[in-house]
């Protein structure tokens, strides 16, 4: 009984009264739900193919009264099958006619997707102005606004967003400690293993302290920490500010007369400017610890010797340089992230694009600026005579 009923309900097209030239008679439930069954749809497609459309010289008479249920999708299917025109002869109930009438009247030709002409594209492209000029203006606005905000803070320190600052310090600094330590430690171990092989060839085992100390403290520590923080905090800042833009929180702040620069950008920039040097030193220490352990096991250089030798191999100016460099990295990451966050448009795609752009730009900038530092300070921080 149940199977009988199910077969009856499946949509199909038959000859009425099973005559050779009788009108086509669709039967069963012509609904979206029925079409969503793979088996029923395949069967229906086959039987529709047999019921040749009127244009192709098939029978032009249709009898819809056998249809159990006809919804808009079913009606659309019939209408499209008829070549978007009424068949010559048709029998149908008033409710079926209502549905088909609606489909017929609304079956407009789909509008063309708007496609900009070449001239239009060119005009739009040049209307934005030269890319470099625009970028320069944006950077200038960003840095200028930050300077104004810092002056404002210096004039009235008691009105500064200190609670925000401490929150960001915790979020961007403290919670980054475990991951940076782990990455630093492993890089230190790997670097020590690699160099120890080469040094042993020359019998210059003791120089591992100089190589590890200089490269880790001066270059790898700050850059590693900056890349990790750009991925961690840079994306978080962009997403936070971007969502605030989507939910109109930014507009609400502006209406209340609370400037974005002072309350959103400056605390984040300050927090990263303070946290970044600390994280970078922390990463360097972890990396040195890793290198020290590896040197002990591969070259028999004792930790005591390592620690005694380190200050002689790495002059103090290197640490100053690393700290200054890291502060600049922190400021860059925060500024770039805030900038991309403010430019997010109210849709999900733009948020994703903004976050990606923020991370990629800040990592690239970190490496560019690091190269600049390397060139500018090439005469500073190397102990004379090795």
């Amino acid at each position, binding site marked *: 009984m149940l199977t009988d009923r199910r077969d009856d309900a499946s949509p199909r097209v038959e000859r009425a009264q099973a005559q050779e030239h009788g009108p086509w008679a669709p039967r069963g439930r012509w609904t*979206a739900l029925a079409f969503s069954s793979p088996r029923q749809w395949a069967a229906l497609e086959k039987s529709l193919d047999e019921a040749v459309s009127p244009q192709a010289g098939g029978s032009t008479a249709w009898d819809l009264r056998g249809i159990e249920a006809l919804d808009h999708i079913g009606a659309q299917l019939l209408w499209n099958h008829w070549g978007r025109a009424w068949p010559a002869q048709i029998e149908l109930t008033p409710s079926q006619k209502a549905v088909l009438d609606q489909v017929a009247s609304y079956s407009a030709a789909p509008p063309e997707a708007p496609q900009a002409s070449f001239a239009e594209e060119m005009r739009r492209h040049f209307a934005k102005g030269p890319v470099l000029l625009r970028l320069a203006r944006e950077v200038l606005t960003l840095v200028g606004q930050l300077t104004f905000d810092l002056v404002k803070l210096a004039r009235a320190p008691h009105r500064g967003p200190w609670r925000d600052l401490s929150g960001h310090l915790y979020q961007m600094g403290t919670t980054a400690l475990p991951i940076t330590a782990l990455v630093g430690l492993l890089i230190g171990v790997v670097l020590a293993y690699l160099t120890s092989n080469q040094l042993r060839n020359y019998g210059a085992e003791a120089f591992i302290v100089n190589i590890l100390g200089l490269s880790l403290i001066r270059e790898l520590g700050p850059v590693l920490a900056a890349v990790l923080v750009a991925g961690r905090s840079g994306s978080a800042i962009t997403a936070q500010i971007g969502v605030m833009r989507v939910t109109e929180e930014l507009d609400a702040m502006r209406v209340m007369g609370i400037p974005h620069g002072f309350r959103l950008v400056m605390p984040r920039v300050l927090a990263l400017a303070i946290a970044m040097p600390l994280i970078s030193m922390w990463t360097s220490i972890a990396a040195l610890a890793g290198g020290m352990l590896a040197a002990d096991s591969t070259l028999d250089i004792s930790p005591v010797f390592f620690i005694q030798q380190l200050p002689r191999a790495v002059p103090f100016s290197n640490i100053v340089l690393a700290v200054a460099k890291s502060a600049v990295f922190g400021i860059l990451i925060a500024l770039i992230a805030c900038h991309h966050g403010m430019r997010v448009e109210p849709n999900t795609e733009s948020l994703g694009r903004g976050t990606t752009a923020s991370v990629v730009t800040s990592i690239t900038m970190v490496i560019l600026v690091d190269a600049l530092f390397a060139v500018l300070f090439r005469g500073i921080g190397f102990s004379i005579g090795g």
Partner: protein
Amino acid sequence: MHSSAWQPLDHGDAPVVEIHGLWTVFAGDSGEQVVHRDLALRIERGEILSLVGGSGTGKTVLLRQILGLEHPTRGEVRVLGVPPAALSAKGAAVVGMLFQHGALFSAFNVLDNIAFPLRELKRLPEDLVRDAALVKLQMVGLGPEHAHKMPADLSGGMVKRVALARALIMDPPLLLLDEPTAGLDPAASDSFCELLRGLHRELGLTVVMVTHDLDTLLDLSTRIAVLADQKVIVAGPAEEVIRFDHPFIHDYFLGSRGRRALLALDEHRRRS
């Protein structure tokens, strides 16, 4: 048994939604909070039922439980004779939902948004899907020229209309609306109500809506269910609900706004 999900939805005269013995308890920091206590509700086929209640009485939670998005702590919800979880295989073909803010996919244009549930079947030919989406777009009163706009470029009223078209794309027998007229101007609200009434008549829908808009409420609903004291205290036509003696109903319908809306309704009925 495996093909049961594709069987026609022939549930006879069974109610479209049946809820009984429903408990919803939220565990919060400040202890447990009972939202629904032994709640019962029946929604018959072809009704337009409005859920009314003060803030925090669990109207939207109830709607989400009917959709199967949330599970009650205790008790049973049956939609078209089956638990809501079993309906998810049929999805948009059974229940259409208009979310309060539209919930349009911001990465798709209007036409692709409306066509999305149909296209996800991955079976129907592309021209059929597109035509069906265009028909629904025009049924909700928007011209084909809006088909290629992105959701971000639409006004609030247009977002609601597009979302309604998407909810209706597979002609589901049950339509749920969360605050359908919130955020629309009076003219847009009126035309949206007119549209809903027309669709209800044409498609034979069962509509369940949550609304705070008294005009919409009295204008559209065939029955009103009032949520208070953690249960449905009364469910019936407007006249019956207003006569029910409860402080919430007194404040809600017989306050100055309620009186105005009732007066307007009376006049409207007398004229037509």
